[in-house]
């Protein structure tokens, strides 16, 4: 690699900066999962003992657990001993050499989303020398955050540079024993993101994994931890509107958020993993545990998600409203088209007094997609004056798809006030003909209808993200009608 290009790559990928890549590049763990696998992963990453112990506890717990099968999705059994849990970051030479080697279907979608060529190459995993532009952006970005005391780096880097922070908060929201997939993630997580906003600091820009990851591949077991100290504010963007392919079918990520007194965390996701072909072959299984703890008084956590990808989505971003007067929110658009299955929703656990939560869920089903909303609102005994508003809407495009809702409410305090609204609407041939008779194409009509349906969620997204998300929905649902 020419020296100049190497420098660029070093800047972009924190892993390279720490020089351990060279040692592991050639190696990957044998298939299967055992204590040895966990030890190997931890050793490769040069982790401290406490973290290895934590991983091992998670592993031992995981062995006693069974895979949950209560969700409304079906898929063939997963052979956990047939997965490679550790492999060196994919080197450039494994990827396609140029866009000409990339699936034209994927390129077509990129073009429709208006993604610049350089960006397309990155997304498709083409080996390219990074553009100088994005280097300078990434560098200025890091400097600016650093001057405010904000830490934003890969999880591995955080373990090395800020072990005390990681040790204090890791697993404090999603314990390593939480559920089958979370335990698996805790045992074998590869990397992820870490963000720490110090007391009283308002993060001046949207934090985005896009800037941090660039060429790096975080792998199938991603771990994210975000901590906002007293009075801090951060808006975090995860994902990317462009479709992403991955050779690993199973993805089990964990995201933990912690907000102290008067802190606010806004977490926005656009998830567009490869959904599989029209028959559902080859799509990603996305089993994610996301949870935020409103630890402090008057703290706020909101989850906003636009889920269009994956063959299977199993995901319930939740809030534990512990501090008095804390506020939780969940805004979601989930699409299930073709053979996609989405089982998603949220849990709002009210512990503190006068805690408030809002749930707005918009499920779109098309083709033969199956969309399930599963929600829990629990008002604990001590949560006097708690309030929840839930709205759960389903949109059906065509008549071969399905929408299901399972809202659960548990109230242990009589002063709680809860409101629930739900609706199902169907876009059939009549609606489309009406639109077409006014000069709109079926695709334009669907994107208009969908945008209208989703607007309460889109308005929670940062501006540019909302514009992209809207375009993305249009593309995802193209061909779902007519």
């Amino acid at each position, binding site marked *: 690699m020419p020296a100049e290009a190497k420098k660029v790559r070093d800047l972009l990928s924190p892993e390279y900066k720490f020089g351990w890549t060279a040692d592991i590049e050639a190696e990957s763990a044998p298939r299967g999962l055992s204590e040895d696998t966990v030890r190997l992963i931890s050793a490769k990453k040069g982790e401290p003992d406490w973290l290895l112990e934590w991983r091992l506890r998670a592993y031992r717990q995981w062995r006693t657990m069974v895979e949950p099968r209560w969700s409304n999705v079906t898929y063939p059994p997963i052979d956990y001993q047939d997965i490679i849990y550790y492999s060196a970051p994919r080197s450039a030479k494994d990827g396609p050499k140029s866009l000409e080697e990339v699936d034209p279907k994927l390129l077509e979608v990129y073009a429709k989303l208006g993604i610049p060529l350089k960006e397309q190459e990155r997304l498709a995993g083409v080996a390219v020398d990074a553009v100088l532009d994005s280097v300078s952006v990434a560098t200025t970005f890091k400097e600016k955050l650093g001057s405010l005391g904000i830490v934003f780096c890969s999880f591995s880097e955080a373990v090395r540079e800020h072990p005390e922070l990681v040790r204090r908060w890791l697993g404090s929201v999603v314990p390593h024993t939480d559920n089958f997939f979370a335990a698996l993630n805790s045992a074998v997580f590869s990397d992820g993101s870490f963000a720490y906003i110090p007391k009283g600091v308002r993060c001046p820009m949207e934090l985005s994994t896009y800037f941090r990851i660039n060429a790096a591949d975080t792998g199938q077991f991603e771990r994210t931890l975000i901590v906002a100290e007293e009075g801090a504010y951060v808006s975090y963007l995860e994902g990317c509107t462009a479709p992403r392919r991955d050779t690993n079918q199973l993805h089990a990520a964990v995201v933990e958020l912690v907000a102290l007194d008067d802190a606010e965390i806004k977490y926005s996701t656009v998830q567009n993993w490869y959904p599989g072909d029209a028959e559902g072959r080859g799509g990603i299984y996305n089993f994610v545990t996301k949870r935020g703890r409103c630890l402090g008084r008057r703290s706020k956590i909101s989850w906003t998600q636009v889920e269009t990808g994956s063959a299977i989505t199993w995901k319930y971003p939740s809030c534990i409203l512990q501090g008095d007067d804390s506020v939780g929110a969940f805004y979601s658009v989930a699409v299930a088209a073709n053979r996609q299955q989405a089982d998603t929703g949220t849990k709002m656990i009210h512990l503190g007094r006068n805690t408030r939560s809002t749930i707005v869920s918009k499920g779109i089903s098309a083709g033969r997609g199956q969309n399930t909303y599963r929600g829990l609102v629990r008002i604990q005994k001590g949560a006097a004056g708690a309030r929840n508003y839930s709205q759960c*809407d389903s*949109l059906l495009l065509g008549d071969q798809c399905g929408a299901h809702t399972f809202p659960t409410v548990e109230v242990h305090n009589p002063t709680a006030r809860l409101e629930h609204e739900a*609706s199902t*609407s169907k*876009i059939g*041939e*009549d*609606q489309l*003909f*009406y*639109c*077409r*008779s*006014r*000069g*709109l*194409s*079926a695709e*334009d009509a669907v994107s*208009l*209808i969908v*945008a*209208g*349906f989703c607007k309460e969620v889109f308005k929670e997204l940062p501006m540019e993200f909302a514009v992209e998300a809207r375009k993305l929905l249009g593309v995802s649902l193209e061909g779902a009608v007519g």
Partner: protein
Amino acid sequence: MLEIRDLHARVEGRDILRGIDLTVPAGEVHAVMGPNGSGKSTLAHVLAGREGYEIQRGRVLFAGRDLLAMSAEERAREGLFLAFQYPVEIPGLSTALFLKAALNAVRKHRGEPELDAIEFLALAKVRMARLGMDERLLQRPLNEGFSGGEKKRNEIFQMAMLEPRFCLLDETDSGLDIDALKLVADGVNAMRGPGRAMLLITHYERLLEYVVPDAVHVLSQGRIVRSGDRTLARELEEKGYAGAAAPRP
């Protein structure tokens, strides 16, 4: 403007249109009357390009072009407009957003610049006022929860915005109160002109007192069985279809 020749159409294995011949020249307004189930709405839907009809025979020329070869949206962009007998509700889609997108699709096709939100609203408000419509309907989901009369007026409002060359009105007068009928009739009359033709499907002679047609046709069992001038409408009103609709000699 519109020339229908020997048009046959089936739906669900039933012959509904069984040889329609009808010509509406530019600048003229024709009325079609006929008993329930005679095929009036079917004719309107076939002309507007709804799928699910099997066209067995016949052709339709629209401004010299083969209408049946065009998709529904092409027909609309080329200037054909159908005011629905039963306007469709679209939950969650605001009337303003919908109509702005439709208008801009049509304008783009005509090579005219697209309207921005402000220009669109200014135009929409003028047109709505003329039809005695409440501006707030613009912000509501399309037709959802609109009263019967509001839906019908909304159709004419859309027509006034899109400025089509050929207007097809399927029982727009049904369900309107007397004042609304006058407003709608004024709206329709305002659009009459040498470059535009209209086909009004109606059951009532009353509409034709306000919008005086150049010709009246009677549709029965999928065929035009009689044509005449506006006096035919009165005759039908008095004698009913059974008494008046003897086939043409």
